[in-house]
Protein backbone atom coordinates (compact mmCIF):
# COMPACT_ATOMS: atom_id res chain seq x y z
CA UNK A 1 0.00 0.00 0.00
CA UNK A 2 1.29 3.47 -0.86
CA UNK A 3 2.09 5.44 2.29
CA UNK A 4 0.08 8.60 2.82
CA UNK A 5 3.21 10.75 2.51
CA UNK A 6 4.00 9.20 -0.89
CA UNK A 7 0.43 9.98 -1.97
CA UNK A 8 0.79 13.61 -0.76
CA UNK A 9 3.99 14.07 -2.77
CA UNK A 10 2.43 12.38 -5.82
CA UNK A 11 -0.53 14.76 -5.59
CA UNK A 12 1.87 17.73 -5.47
CA UNK A 13 3.61 16.51 -8.65
CA UNK A 14 0.22 16.17 -10.38
CA UNK A 15 -0.75 19.70 -9.32
CA UNK A 16 2.59 21.02 -10.56
CA UNK A 17 2.19 19.23 -13.89
CA UNK A 18 -1.24 20.79 -14.33
CA UNK A 19 -0.25 24.31 -13.36
CA UNK A 20 3.02 24.66 -15.20
CA UNK A 21 1.84 25.33 -18.71
CA UNK A 22 4.40 23.22 -20.55
CA UNK A 23 2.66 19.85 -20.22
CA UNK A 24 -0.91 21.00 -20.99
CA UNK A 25 0.44 22.81 -24.06
CA UNK A 26 2.33 19.69 -25.17
CA UNK A 27 -0.83 17.59 -24.74
CA UNK A 28 -2.91 20.07 -26.75
CA UNK A 29 -0.28 20.15 -29.47
CA UNK A 30 -0.09 16.34 -29.55
CA UNK A 31 -3.87 16.05 -29.77
CA UNK A 32 -3.84 18.64 -32.57
CA UNK A 33 -1.30 16.66 -34.58
CA UNK A 34 -3.31 13.42 -34.19
CA UNK A 35 -6.54 15.17 -35.21
CA UNK A 36 -4.81 16.71 -38.23
CA UNK A 37 -3.47 13.32 -39.27
CA UNK A 38 -6.99 11.90 -38.99
CA UNK A 39 -8.19 14.36 -41.60
CA UNK A 40 -5.05 14.22 -43.72
CA UNK A 41 -5.21 10.43 -43.92
CA UNK A 42 -8.45 10.68 -45.88
CA UNK A 43 -6.31 11.62 -48.82
CA UNK A 44 -3.99 8.59 -48.51
CA UNK A 45 -6.03 6.13 -50.56
CA UNK A 46 -5.81 2.57 -49.35
CA UNK A 47 -3.40 3.26 -46.57
CA UNK A 48 -5.41 5.81 -44.59
CA UNK A 49 -5.98 3.67 -41.51
CA UNK A 50 -2.37 2.52 -41.28
CA UNK A 51 -1.14 6.06 -41.83
CA UNK A 52 -3.41 7.46 -39.13
CA UNK A 53 -2.54 4.78 -36.57
CA UNK A 54 1.16 5.07 -37.31
CA UNK A 55 1.12 8.85 -36.91
CA UNK A 56 -1.00 8.67 -33.74
CA UNK A 57 1.27 6.08 -32.07
CA UNK A 58 4.38 8.05 -33.07
CA UNK A 59 2.90 11.25 -31.64
CA UNK A 60 2.01 9.48 -28.37
CA UNK A 61 5.56 8.14 -28.19
CA UNK A 62 7.24 11.48 -28.95
CA UNK A 63 5.04 13.68 -26.82
CA UNK A 64 4.98 11.15 -23.99
CA UNK A 65 8.78 10.95 -23.99
CA UNK A 66 9.13 14.75 -24.06
CA UNK A 67 6.57 15.18 -21.26
CA UNK A 68 8.34 12.54 -19.17
CA UNK A 69 11.74 14.18 -19.56
CA UNK A 70 10.43 17.69 -18.87
CA UNK A 71 8.44 16.64 -15.84
CA UNK A 72 10.74 14.12 -14.18
CA UNK A 73 14.17 15.64 -14.71
CA UNK A 74 13.07 18.78 -12.81
CA UNK A 75 11.58 16.96 -9.86
CA UNK A 76 14.32 16.08 -7.35
CA UNK A 77 17.06 18.32 -8.73
CA UNK A 78 14.52 21.11 -9.25
CA UNK A 79 13.65 20.92 -5.54
CA UNK A 80 17.33 21.31 -4.70
CA UNK A 81 18.00 24.08 -7.22
CA UNK A 82 14.97 26.09 -6.09
CA UNK A 83 15.79 25.31 -2.41
CA UNK A 84 12.27 24.09 -1.71
CA UNK A 85 13.93 20.89 -0.49
CA UNK A 86 14.73 22.48 2.90
CA UNK A 87 11.07 22.94 3.70
CA UNK A 88 10.09 19.50 2.46
CA UNK A 89 12.82 17.50 4.20
CA UNK A 90 12.27 19.32 7.50
CA UNK A 91 8.81 17.72 7.55
CA UNK A 92 8.25 14.12 8.71
CA UNK A 93 9.06 12.53 5.36
CA UNK A 94 11.66 9.89 4.59
CA UNK A 95 13.86 10.59 1.63
CA UNK A 96 12.81 7.40 -0.18
CA UNK A 97 9.19 8.50 0.25
CA UNK A 98 10.00 11.71 -1.58
CA UNK A 99 11.66 9.79 -4.44
CA UNK A 100 8.81 7.29 -4.74
CA UNK A 101 6.18 10.04 -4.38
CA UNK A 102 7.79 11.98 -7.21
CA UNK A 103 7.78 8.83 -9.34
CA UNK A 104 4.15 7.94 -8.63
CA UNK A 105 3.04 11.51 -9.31
CA UNK A 106 5.06 11.69 -12.50
CA UNK A 107 3.73 8.44 -14.00
CA UNK A 108 0.18 9.44 -13.05
CA UNK A 109 0.68 12.84 -14.72
CA UNK A 110 2.14 11.18 -17.83
CA UNK A 111 -0.84 8.83 -17.98
CA UNK A 112 -3.12 11.86 -17.89
CA UNK A 113 -1.05 13.52 -20.63
CA UNK A 114 -1.21 10.47 -22.89
CA UNK A 115 -4.86 9.62 -22.18
CA UNK A 116 -6.46 12.31 -24.41
CA UNK A 117 -4.25 11.30 -27.35
CA UNK A 118 -5.14 7.62 -26.87
CA UNK A 119 -8.82 8.64 -26.59
CA UNK A 120 -8.67 10.43 -29.97
CA UNK A 121 -6.96 7.40 -31.54
CA UNK A 122 -9.59 5.09 -30.06
CA UNK A 123 -12.41 7.36 -31.21
CA UNK A 124 -11.31 7.34 -34.83
CA UNK A 125 -10.64 3.59 -34.79
CA UNK A 126 -14.17 3.11 -33.40
CA UNK A 127 -15.92 5.47 -35.83
CA UNK A 128 -14.60 4.77 -39.26
CA UNK A 129 -10.96 3.80 -39.43
CA UNK A 130 -11.09 0.10 -38.58
CA UNK A 131 -8.66 -1.90 -36.47
CA UNK A 132 -8.88 -2.86 -32.83
CA UNK A 133 -9.28 -0.32 -30.03
CA UNK A 134 -8.06 -2.93 -27.55
CA UNK A 135 -4.78 -3.44 -29.43
CA UNK A 136 -4.27 0.34 -29.63
CA UNK A 137 -4.83 0.61 -25.88
CA UNK A 138 -2.43 -2.29 -25.27
CA UNK A 139 0.24 -0.55 -27.36
CA UNK A 140 -0.35 2.72 -25.53
CA UNK A 141 -0.10 0.92 -22.20
CA UNK A 142 3.28 -0.53 -23.21
CA UNK A 143 4.45 2.93 -24.21
CA UNK A 144 3.33 4.21 -20.81
CA UNK A 145 5.40 1.45 -19.21
CA UNK A 146 8.39 2.71 -21.21
CA UNK A 147 7.71 6.22 -19.88
CA UNK A 148 7.56 4.80 -16.34
CA UNK A 149 10.96 3.14 -16.80
CA UNK A 150 12.34 6.38 -18.28
CA UNK A 151 10.92 8.26 -15.26
CA UNK A 152 12.69 5.91 -12.86
CA UNK A 153 15.96 6.34 -14.79
CA UNK A 154 15.59 10.14 -14.85
CA UNK A 155 14.82 10.23 -11.11
CA UNK A 156 17.81 7.98 -10.44
CA UNK A 157 20.06 10.39 -12.34
CA UNK A 158 18.39 13.46 -10.78
CA UNK A 159 19.15 12.09 -7.31
CA UNK A 160 22.81 13.08 -7.75
CA UNK A 161 22.82 15.71 -10.52
CA UNK A 162 21.26 18.92 -11.76
CA UNK A 163 18.07 19.17 -13.83
CA UNK A 164 19.94 19.76 -17.07
CA UNK A 165 22.36 16.87 -16.49
CA UNK A 166 19.43 14.62 -15.52
CA UNK A 167 17.52 15.51 -18.70
CA UNK A 168 20.58 15.14 -20.97
CA UNK A 169 21.75 11.85 -19.46
CA UNK A 170 18.22 10.43 -19.50
CA UNK A 171 17.89 11.26 -23.21
CA UNK A 172 21.26 9.62 -23.84
CA UNK A 173 20.35 6.46 -21.90
CA UNK A 174 16.94 6.35 -23.62
CA UNK A 175 18.32 6.71 -27.14
CA UNK A 176 21.22 4.29 -26.60
CA UNK A 177 18.84 1.81 -24.98
CA UNK A 178 16.48 1.99 -27.97
CA UNK A 179 19.32 1.56 -30.41
CA UNK A 180 21.42 -0.76 -28.33
CA UNK A 181 21.11 -3.68 -30.73
CA UNK A 182 22.51 -1.58 -33.56
CA UNK A 183 25.09 0.11 -31.33
CA UNK A 184 26.53 -3.13 -29.94
CA UNK A 185 26.59 -4.75 -33.40
CA UNK A 186 28.42 -1.71 -34.74
CA UNK A 187 30.87 -1.74 -31.82
CA UNK A 188 31.54 -5.44 -32.36
CA UNK A 189 32.14 -4.84 -36.09
CA UNK A 190 34.46 -1.85 -35.89
CA UNK A 191 36.26 -2.62 -32.66
CA UNK A 192 39.60 -4.39 -32.78
CA UNK A 193 40.02 -4.26 -29.03
CA UNK A 194 38.44 -7.09 -27.00
CA UNK A 195 37.90 -4.60 -24.14
CA UNK A 196 35.67 -2.42 -26.33
CA UNK A 197 33.76 -5.46 -27.50
CA UNK A 198 33.20 -6.53 -23.87
CA UNK A 199 32.09 -3.00 -23.02
CA UNK A 200 29.58 -3.16 -25.87
CA UNK A 201 28.27 -6.47 -24.56
CA UNK A 202 28.09 -5.15 -20.99
CA UNK A 203 26.12 -2.14 -22.20
CA UNK A 204 23.76 -4.45 -24.06
CA UNK A 205 22.87 -6.36 -20.92
CA UNK A 206 22.95 -3.41 -18.51
CA UNK A 207 20.74 -1.03 -20.44
CA UNK A 208 16.99 -1.61 -20.50
CA UNK A 209 15.58 -2.94 -23.73
CA UNK A 210 13.08 -0.25 -24.64
CA UNK A 211 12.24 -2.06 -27.88
CA UNK A 212 10.25 -4.50 -25.72
CA UNK A 213 7.72 -1.73 -25.15
CA UNK A 214 7.38 -0.89 -28.82
CA UNK A 215 4.52 -2.74 -30.53
CA UNK A 216 3.60 0.14 -32.78
CA UNK A 217 4.17 -1.85 -35.98
CA UNK A 218 1.96 -4.67 -34.74
CA UNK A 219 -0.89 -2.27 -34.06
CA UNK A 220 -0.48 -0.47 -37.38
CA UNK A 221 -0.67 -3.81 -39.24
CA UNK A 222 -3.60 -5.09 -37.13
CA UNK A 223 -1.63 -7.86 -35.46
CA UNK A 224 -2.64 -8.97 -31.97
CA UNK A 225 -0.37 -8.27 -29.00
CA UNK A 226 -0.59 -11.43 -26.85
CA UNK A 227 -1.67 -11.04 -23.23
CA UNK A 228 1.29 -13.14 -22.13
CA UNK A 229 3.65 -10.68 -23.81
CA UNK A 230 1.87 -7.84 -22.04
CA UNK A 231 2.32 -9.62 -18.68
CA UNK A 232 6.00 -10.39 -19.28
CA UNK A 233 6.74 -6.82 -20.34
CA UNK A 234 4.87 -5.44 -17.35
CA UNK A 235 7.00 -7.60 -15.08
CA UNK A 236 10.14 -6.47 -16.91
CA UNK A 237 9.11 -2.82 -16.43
CA UNK A 238 8.40 -3.37 -12.73
CA UNK A 239 11.85 -4.88 -12.20
CA UNK A 240 13.54 -2.00 -14.02
CA UNK A 241 11.51 0.64 -12.14
CA UNK A 242 12.23 -1.01 -8.79
CA UNK A 243 15.94 -1.20 -9.60
CA UNK A 244 16.34 2.42 -10.71
CA UNK A 245 14.14 3.80 -7.92
CA UNK A 246 16.09 1.80 -5.34
CA UNK A 247 19.34 3.13 -6.77
CA UNK A 248 18.01 6.70 -6.82
CA UNK A 249 16.66 6.47 -3.27
CA UNK A 250 19.96 5.07 -1.98
CA UNK A 251 21.95 7.90 -3.57
CA UNK A 252 19.42 10.52 -2.42
CA UNK A 253 19.58 9.11 1.12
CA UNK A 254 23.28 9.97 1.34
CA UNK A 255 23.02 13.37 -0.33
CA UNK A 256 23.61 16.55 1.70
CA UNK A 257 21.73 19.80 1.14
Amino acid at each position, binding site marked *: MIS*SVVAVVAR*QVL*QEAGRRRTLPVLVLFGCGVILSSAFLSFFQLGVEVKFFKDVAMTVIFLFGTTSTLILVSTQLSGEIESRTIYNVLS*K*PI*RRWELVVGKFVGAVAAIALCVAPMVAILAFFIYTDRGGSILEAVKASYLLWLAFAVLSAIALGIASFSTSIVAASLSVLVFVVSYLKGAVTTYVALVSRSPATAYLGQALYYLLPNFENFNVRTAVVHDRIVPWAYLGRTTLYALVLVAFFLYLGAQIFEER*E*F
Partner: protein
Amino acid sequence: MTESRHAGASAVPPVISVNNLTKRYRNPSGSDRAALVGLTLDVSPGEIYGFLGPNGAGKTTTIKLLLGLIFPTAGSGTILGAPLGSVAARRRLGFLPESPYFYEYFRGDELLDYYGRLFGLTAAERRTRVEDLLKLVGLWEHRRLAVRKYSRGMLQRLGLAQALINDPELVILDEPAGGLDPIGRREMRDILLQLRDRGKTVFLSSHILAEVEMICDQVAILHRGQLLAVGRIGDLLADSREMELTVHGLDGTLTKRLEGIPGATIRHGADSTVVVLPEQRFVYQAIETVKQAGGQIVSLTAKRERLEDLFVKLIGSREGGTAA
Protein backbone atom coordinates in the same frame (compact mmCIF):
# COMPACT_ATOMS: atom_id res chain seq x y z
CA MET B 1 33.98 29.55 26.40
CA THR B 2 32.28 32.00 28.75
CA GLU B 3 30.09 29.48 30.53
CA SER B 4 30.10 25.72 30.71
CA ARG B 5 27.18 23.61 29.51
CA HIS B 6 24.21 25.43 30.93
CA ALA B 7 21.21 23.19 31.12
CA GLY B 8 23.02 20.09 32.25
CA ALA B 9 21.92 20.67 35.81
CA SER B 10 18.25 20.97 34.89
CA ALA B 11 15.99 18.05 35.80
CA VAL B 12 13.81 18.59 32.72
CA PRO B 13 15.24 16.82 29.68
CA PRO B 14 16.53 19.29 27.08
CA VAL B 15 14.61 19.84 23.87
CA ILE B 16 17.84 20.00 21.90
CA SER B 17 20.97 18.29 23.15
CA VAL B 18 24.10 18.03 21.05
CA ASN B 19 27.41 16.63 22.10
CA ASN B 20 30.70 17.31 20.32
CA LEU B 21 28.88 17.93 17.04
CA THR B 22 31.41 18.40 14.25
CA LYS B 23 31.06 18.97 10.54
CA ARG B 24 34.00 19.06 8.15
CA TYR B 25 33.86 19.51 4.41
CA ARG B 26 36.50 18.31 2.00
CA ASN B 27 37.81 21.02 -0.30
CA PRO B 28 38.50 20.20 -3.97
CA SER B 29 42.22 20.45 -3.11
CA GLY B 30 41.77 17.54 -0.70
CA SER B 31 42.16 19.56 2.50
CA ASP B 32 39.48 19.67 5.20
CA ARG B 33 37.47 22.73 6.15
CA ALA B 34 35.78 22.69 9.55
CA ALA B 35 32.32 24.26 9.46
CA LEU B 36 31.53 23.24 13.02
CA VAL B 37 33.90 21.96 15.70
CA GLY B 38 32.81 20.05 18.79
CA LEU B 39 29.57 21.91 19.46
CA THR B 40 28.04 20.90 22.78
CA LEU B 41 24.90 22.59 24.02
CA ASP B 42 21.50 21.96 25.56
CA VAL B 43 18.32 23.90 24.96
CA SER B 44 15.75 23.72 27.74
CA PRO B 45 12.01 23.51 27.08
CA GLY B 46 9.95 26.68 27.00
CA GLU B 47 12.74 29.14 26.29
CA ILE B 48 13.76 31.31 23.39
CA TYR B 49 17.32 30.38 22.59
CA GLY B 50 19.38 32.81 20.53
CA PHE B 51 22.02 31.31 18.28
CA LEU B 52 24.40 34.05 17.21
CA GLY B 53 27.49 34.44 15.13
CA PRO B 54 28.90 36.34 12.19
CA ASN B 55 28.51 35.07 8.61
CA GLY B 56 30.19 31.71 8.17
CA ALA B 57 30.17 31.00 11.91
CA GLY B 58 28.38 27.67 11.46
CA LYS B 59 24.84 28.63 12.49
CA THR B 60 23.08 27.32 9.38
CA THR B 61 25.36 24.26 9.39
CA THR B 62 24.21 23.51 12.95
CA ILE B 63 20.55 23.90 11.97
CA LYS B 64 21.01 21.62 8.96
CA LEU B 65 22.64 19.02 11.21
CA LEU B 66 19.74 19.26 13.65
CA LEU B 67 17.28 18.65 10.83
CA GLY B 68 19.24 15.88 9.14
CA LEU B 69 19.78 17.87 5.93
CA ILE B 70 23.50 17.19 6.34
CA PHE B 71 25.26 14.55 8.42
CA PRO B 72 27.80 15.09 11.22
CA THR B 73 31.44 14.14 10.75
CA ALA B 74 31.55 13.45 14.49
CA GLY B 75 29.36 13.85 17.54
CA SER B 76 25.73 13.15 18.17
CA GLY B 77 22.59 14.64 19.59
CA THR B 78 18.88 14.46 20.15
CA ILE B 79 15.87 16.64 19.43
CA LEU B 80 12.86 16.10 21.67
CA GLY B 81 14.47 12.83 22.75
CA ALA B 82 14.78 11.46 19.20
CA PRO B 83 17.98 11.24 17.13
CA LEU B 84 18.94 14.30 15.08
CA GLY B 85 17.13 14.45 11.76
CA SER B 86 14.84 11.52 12.55
CA VAL B 87 11.24 11.50 11.32
CA ALA B 88 10.08 11.27 14.95
CA ALA B 89 11.91 14.52 15.75
CA ARG B 90 10.76 16.30 12.59
CA ARG B 91 7.15 15.39 13.34
CA ARG B 92 7.28 17.60 16.46
CA LEU B 93 9.24 20.58 15.19
CA GLY B 94 8.74 23.46 12.79
CA PHE B 95 11.45 25.04 10.67
CA LEU B 96 11.77 28.37 8.90
CA PRO B 97 14.82 28.40 6.62
CA GLU B 98 16.81 31.54 5.86
CA SER B 99 15.18 33.08 2.74
CA PRO B 100 12.30 30.60 2.45
CA TYR B 101 11.55 29.23 -1.01
CA PHE B 102 8.24 27.61 -1.87
CA TYR B 103 6.44 25.98 -4.78
CA GLU B 104 5.48 29.08 -6.73
CA TYR B 105 2.48 27.55 -8.48
CA PHE B 106 0.64 27.03 -5.17
CA ARG B 107 -1.56 29.65 -3.56
CA GLY B 108 -0.73 30.66 0.00
CA ASP B 109 -3.51 28.54 1.53
CA GLU B 110 -2.73 25.58 -0.74
CA LEU B 111 0.91 25.63 0.29
CA LEU B 112 0.04 25.44 3.99
CA ASP B 113 -2.50 22.71 3.22
CA TYR B 114 0.23 20.73 1.42
CA TYR B 115 2.60 20.96 4.39
CA GLY B 116 -0.29 20.03 6.70
CA ARG B 117 -0.85 16.90 4.61
CA LEU B 118 2.83 15.95 5.02
CA PHE B 119 2.23 16.02 8.78
CA GLY B 120 -0.80 13.77 8.35
CA LEU B 121 -3.29 16.38 9.60
CA THR B 122 -6.94 15.68 8.84
CA ALA B 123 -8.87 17.92 6.44
CA ALA B 124 -10.67 19.63 9.33
CA GLU B 125 -7.41 20.20 11.22
CA ARG B 126 -5.77 21.61 8.11
CA ARG B 127 -8.68 23.95 7.43
CA THR B 128 -8.58 25.35 10.96
CA ARG B 129 -4.79 25.58 11.17
CA VAL B 130 -4.43 27.22 7.76
CA GLU B 131 -7.01 29.87 8.59
CA ASP B 132 -5.61 30.55 12.07
CA LEU B 133 -2.02 30.78 10.88
CA LEU B 134 -2.73 32.95 7.86
CA LYS B 135 -4.61 35.33 10.15
CA LEU B 136 -1.78 35.21 12.69
CA VAL B 137 0.86 36.25 10.14
CA GLY B 138 -1.43 38.75 8.41
CA LEU B 139 -1.80 36.93 5.09
CA TRP B 140 -5.46 35.87 5.27
CA GLU B 141 -6.43 38.54 2.73
CA HIS B 142 -3.78 37.21 0.34
CA ARG B 143 -4.52 33.50 0.80
CA ARG B 144 -5.72 33.05 -2.78
CA LEU B 145 -2.71 34.78 -4.30
CA ALA B 146 -0.11 32.61 -6.06
CA VAL B 147 3.06 32.35 -3.99
CA ARG B 148 5.13 33.66 -6.92
CA LYS B 149 3.34 37.00 -6.49
CA TYR B 150 4.24 37.33 -2.79
CA SER B 151 6.75 39.99 -1.73
CA ARG B 152 9.87 39.06 0.25
CA GLY B 153 8.23 40.05 3.52
CA MET B 154 5.08 38.09 2.69
CA LEU B 155 7.18 35.01 1.91
CA GLN B 156 8.86 35.35 5.29
CA ARG B 157 5.45 35.52 6.99
CA LEU B 158 4.27 32.52 4.99
CA GLY B 159 7.46 30.76 6.05
CA LEU B 160 6.63 31.33 9.69
CA ALA B 161 3.08 30.07 9.11
CA GLN B 162 4.30 26.82 7.52
CA ALA B 163 6.75 26.34 10.39
CA LEU B 164 3.81 26.37 12.80
CA ILE B 165 1.37 24.23 10.76
CA ASN B 166 1.83 21.19 13.03
CA ASP B 167 1.63 23.21 16.28
CA PRO B 168 5.24 22.18 17.00
CA GLU B 169 6.87 21.84 20.39
CA LEU B 170 10.10 23.25 18.98
CA VAL B 171 10.43 25.97 16.34
CA ILE B 172 13.77 26.42 14.61
CA LEU B 173 14.07 29.78 12.87
CA ASP B 174 17.00 30.79 10.68
CA GLU B 175 17.11 34.59 10.40
CA PRO B 176 13.32 35.02 10.76
CA ALA B 177 13.39 38.81 10.57
CA GLY B 178 15.09 38.88 7.17
CA GLY B 179 13.02 40.82 4.65
CA LEU B 180 10.58 42.13 7.26
CA ASP B 181 9.87 45.81 7.78
CA PRO B 182 9.91 47.26 11.34
CA ILE B 183 6.23 46.46 11.87
CA GLY B 184 6.74 42.94 10.56
CA ARG B 185 9.69 42.48 12.91
CA ARG B 186 7.65 43.60 15.86
CA GLU B 187 4.84 41.23 14.90
CA MET B 188 7.33 38.40 14.52
CA ARG B 189 8.75 39.20 17.95
CA ASP B 190 5.27 39.17 19.48
CA ILE B 191 4.50 35.81 17.87
CA LEU B 192 7.71 34.31 19.25
CA LEU B 193 6.90 35.60 22.73
CA GLN B 194 3.38 34.17 22.44
CA LEU B 195 4.90 30.80 21.49
CA ARG B 196 7.12 30.88 24.58
CA ASP B 197 4.12 31.78 26.72
CA ARG B 198 2.40 28.66 25.36
CA GLY B 199 5.36 26.55 26.49
CA LYS B 200 6.98 26.17 23.07
CA THR B 201 10.73 26.24 22.62
CA VAL B 202 12.19 28.59 20.02
CA PHE B 203 15.67 28.13 18.61
CA LEU B 204 16.48 31.38 16.86
CA SER B 205 19.46 32.10 14.64
CA SER B 206 19.78 35.82 14.04
CA HIS B 207 22.08 38.69 13.18
CA ILE B 208 19.80 41.26 14.75
CA LEU B 209 21.34 41.41 18.21
CA ALA B 210 18.95 44.03 19.60
CA GLU B 211 16.01 41.70 18.79
CA VAL B 212 17.78 38.74 20.33
CA GLU B 213 18.60 40.71 23.49
CA MET B 214 14.96 41.74 23.76
CA ILE B 215 13.36 38.29 23.54
CA CYS B 216 15.91 35.54 24.17
CA ASP B 217 16.32 33.80 27.50
CA GLN B 218 19.64 32.23 26.57
CA VAL B 219 22.17 32.76 23.84
CA ALA B 220 25.05 30.87 22.33
CA ILE B 221 27.69 32.74 20.34
CA LEU B 222 29.46 30.86 17.60
CA HIS B 223 32.54 31.92 15.67
CA ARG B 224 34.32 29.98 12.93
CA GLY B 225 32.49 26.84 13.97
CA GLN B 226 33.40 27.10 17.64
CA LEU B 227 31.24 28.02 20.58
CA LEU B 228 32.58 31.15 22.27
CA ALA B 229 29.92 31.75 24.90
CA VAL B 230 26.67 30.26 26.11
CA GLY B 231 24.35 31.23 28.92
CA ARG B 232 21.58 33.51 30.12
CA ILE B 233 21.85 37.00 28.69
CA GLY B 234 21.81 38.58 32.16
CA ASP B 235 24.70 36.36 33.24
CA LEU B 236 26.76 37.01 30.15
CA LEU B 237 26.47 40.78 30.09
CA ALA B 238 28.74 42.48 32.59
CA ASP B 239 27.25 45.11 34.88
CA SER B 240 29.20 48.29 34.29
CA ARG B 241 29.76 50.93 36.95
CA GLU B 242 29.88 53.65 34.31
CA MET B 243 27.20 56.37 34.19
CA GLU B 244 26.12 58.37 31.16
CA LEU B 245 25.12 62.00 31.62
CA THR B 246 23.51 63.70 28.62
CA VAL B 247 23.81 67.48 28.65
CA HIS B 248 22.54 70.43 26.53
CA GLY B 249 24.34 73.75 26.23
CA LEU B 250 27.86 72.58 26.85
CA ASP B 251 30.35 75.34 26.04
CA GLY B 252 34.16 75.22 25.96
CA THR B 253 34.61 76.21 29.61
CA LEU B 254 32.16 73.61 30.86
CA THR B 255 33.76 70.95 28.68
CA LYS B 256 37.15 71.69 30.23
CA ARG B 257 35.70 71.50 33.75
CA LEU B 258 34.00 68.16 33.02
CA GLU B 259 37.19 66.80 31.50
CA GLY B 260 38.76 67.55 34.84
CA ILE B 261 36.76 64.70 36.43
CA PRO B 262 39.15 61.69 36.58
CA GLY B 263 38.37 59.13 33.88
CA ALA B 264 35.49 61.08 32.32
CA THR B 265 35.09 60.94 28.54
CA ILE B 266 33.02 63.34 26.47
CA ARG B 267 31.24 62.59 23.17
CA HIS B 268 29.75 65.52 21.28
CA GLY B 269 26.54 64.89 19.35
CA ALA B 270 24.51 67.17 17.07
CA ASP B 271 22.12 68.41 19.79
CA SER B 272 23.65 67.20 23.01
CA THR B 273 26.82 65.95 24.65
CA VAL B 274 27.26 62.66 26.46
CA VAL B 275 29.59 62.58 29.45
CA VAL B 276 30.63 59.07 30.45
CA LEU B 277 31.64 58.94 34.11
CA PRO B 278 33.81 56.00 35.26
CA GLU B 279 32.05 55.61 38.63
CA GLN B 280 28.83 56.68 40.35
CA ARG B 281 30.70 58.78 42.91
CA PHE B 282 31.50 61.38 40.22
CA VAL B 283 27.82 61.92 39.34
CA TYR B 284 27.11 64.66 41.90
CA GLN B 285 30.32 66.49 40.99
CA ALA B 286 29.36 66.43 37.30
CA ILE B 287 25.77 67.58 37.94
CA GLU B 288 27.00 70.44 40.13
CA THR B 289 29.48 71.48 37.46
CA VAL B 290 26.78 71.53 34.76
CA LYS B 291 24.37 73.48 36.99
CA GLN B 292 26.98 76.09 37.85
CA ALA B 293 27.86 76.62 34.19
CA GLY B 294 24.16 77.00 33.20
CA GLY B 295 24.01 73.75 31.24
CA GLN B 296 20.87 71.60 31.04
CA ILE B 297 20.80 67.95 32.09
CA VAL B 298 18.75 65.80 29.71
CA SER B 299 19.26 62.36 31.21
CA LEU B 300 21.33 60.26 33.54
CA THR B 301 21.56 56.51 32.93
CA ALA B 302 23.60 53.62 34.26
CA LYS B 303 25.61 52.22 31.37
CA ARG B 304 25.00 48.51 30.85
CA GLU B 305 26.84 46.26 28.46
CA ARG B 306 24.70 45.32 25.48
CA LEU B 307 24.70 42.03 23.64
CA GLU B 308 26.31 43.82 20.71
CA ASP B 309 29.20 44.91 22.96
CA LEU B 310 29.69 41.35 24.18
CA PHE B 311 29.44 40.00 20.64
CA VAL B 312 32.03 42.44 19.27
CA LYS B 313 34.30 41.85 22.29
CA LEU B 314 34.21 38.06 21.91
CA ILE B 315 34.62 38.01 18.15
CA GLY B 316 37.27 40.73 18.35
CA SER B 317 39.29 38.83 20.94
CA ARG B 318 39.29 35.79 18.62
CA GLU B 319 40.39 37.85 15.65
CA GLY B 320 43.24 39.58 17.45
CA GLY B 321 41.30 42.73 18.22
CA THR B 322 40.35 43.54 14.65
CA ALA B 323 36.63 43.51 15.30
CA ALA B 324 36.75 45.30 18.63
